């Protein structure tokens, strides 16, 4: 057996946090998928060498401070208006790579109009959508994406479809629009899921490079504080309850809807 000191050397390094993530301590709760999602996006930008050519748009929500953690040019938009701001940035600087990073309260609730119209116009940007089915930052209230029967602080007996309406599958909705080119749904709870998500983000930036239209990546994530579970338990709960309603996989590839968009539950 080799001594650990002999292994821990610069030349043996296989993985470390990318330089595009700042050294600031993330403001997220322990085990939150936001941190992983941030790092995946930054790794892709790093590997494509686009640090100086990318503009990110931060939302309102838990990830409002994304500009503190992502070591690239960032703008923090008003609540739900990140796609509108991204449109402006992309149209004035068409050579820049522009992405929005939004949660479900931002993208699927207050920003629904912006989301739908930007996707319908087919602005050449990338949208990263973190869906945890809850308003995490404000104390775990019910969001449009909250599942049926899911307990939140404003639906303490579980979401009742009759009085509270149906959960919104915004990703399937925008996939129907002609402006979207690549729409997919991924997760970040296991190493395999992280690798798949990274591939999807790579593809999204390629689509943007080729100026084909919107690339939209939904990342189904946990909110262990809002769901009142431990991080590992919340990931298990997510696989059991979120994935049947929000199935993993591509929804639209190369501008064509994927026909067999089967529910693919991964542990």
């Amino acid at each position: 057996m080799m001594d650990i000191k002999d292994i821990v050397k610069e030349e043996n390094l296989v993985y470390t946090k990318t330089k595009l993530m700042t050294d600031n301590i993330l403001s997220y709760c322990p085990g939150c998928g936001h941190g992983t999602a941030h790092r995946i996006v930054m790794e892709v930008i790093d590997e494509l060498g686009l640090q100086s050519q990318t503009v990110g748009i931060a939302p309102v929500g838990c990830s409002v401070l994304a500009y503190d953690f992502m070591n690239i040019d960032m703008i923090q938009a008003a609540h739900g208006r990140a796609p509108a701001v991204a449109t402006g940035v992309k149209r004035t600087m068409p050579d820049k790579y522009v992405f929005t990073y939004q949660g479900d309260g931002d993208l699927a609730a207050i920003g629904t109009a912006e989301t739908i119209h930007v996707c319908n116009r087919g602005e050449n940007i990338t949208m990263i959508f973190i869906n945890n089915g809850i308003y995490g930052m404000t104390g775990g209230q019910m969001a449009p994406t909250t599942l049926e029967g899911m307990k939140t602080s404003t639906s303490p007996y579980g979401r009742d479809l009759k009085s509270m309406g149906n959960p919104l599958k915004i990703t399937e909705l925008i996939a129907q629009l002609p402006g979207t080119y690549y729409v997919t749904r991924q997760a970040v709870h296991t190493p395999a899921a992280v690798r798949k998500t990274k591939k999807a983000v790579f593809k999204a930036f390629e689509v943007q490079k080729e100026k084909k239209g919107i690339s939209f990546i939904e990342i189904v994530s946990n909110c262990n504080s809002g769901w009142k579970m431990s991080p590992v338990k919340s990931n298990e709960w997510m696989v059991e309850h979120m994935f049947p309603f929000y199935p993993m996989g591509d929804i639209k590839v190369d501008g064509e809807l994927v026909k067999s968009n089967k529910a693919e539950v991964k542990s």
Partner: protein
Amino acid sequence: MAKVQGAIVVDTDRCKGCEVCIPACPTEVIGLANEVNGKGYHYAYMANPDACIGCANCAIVCPDGVISVYKVKKVA
């Protein structure tokens, strides 16, 4: 005997002790320390260092990116 040996270095000050890395490890290397860091979290550490194969699974699921992974090929 594994042909490769790995090691992880955890940035203990930034680790939040969420335990997401523990089920991600295929060889059950990682455990939580009895000690806490400056923020009061039990941080992850190599409880079983000999079993580490340097696959980096723990590092890529770590939400806070606190794990660095090193790997060497063993000579005979």
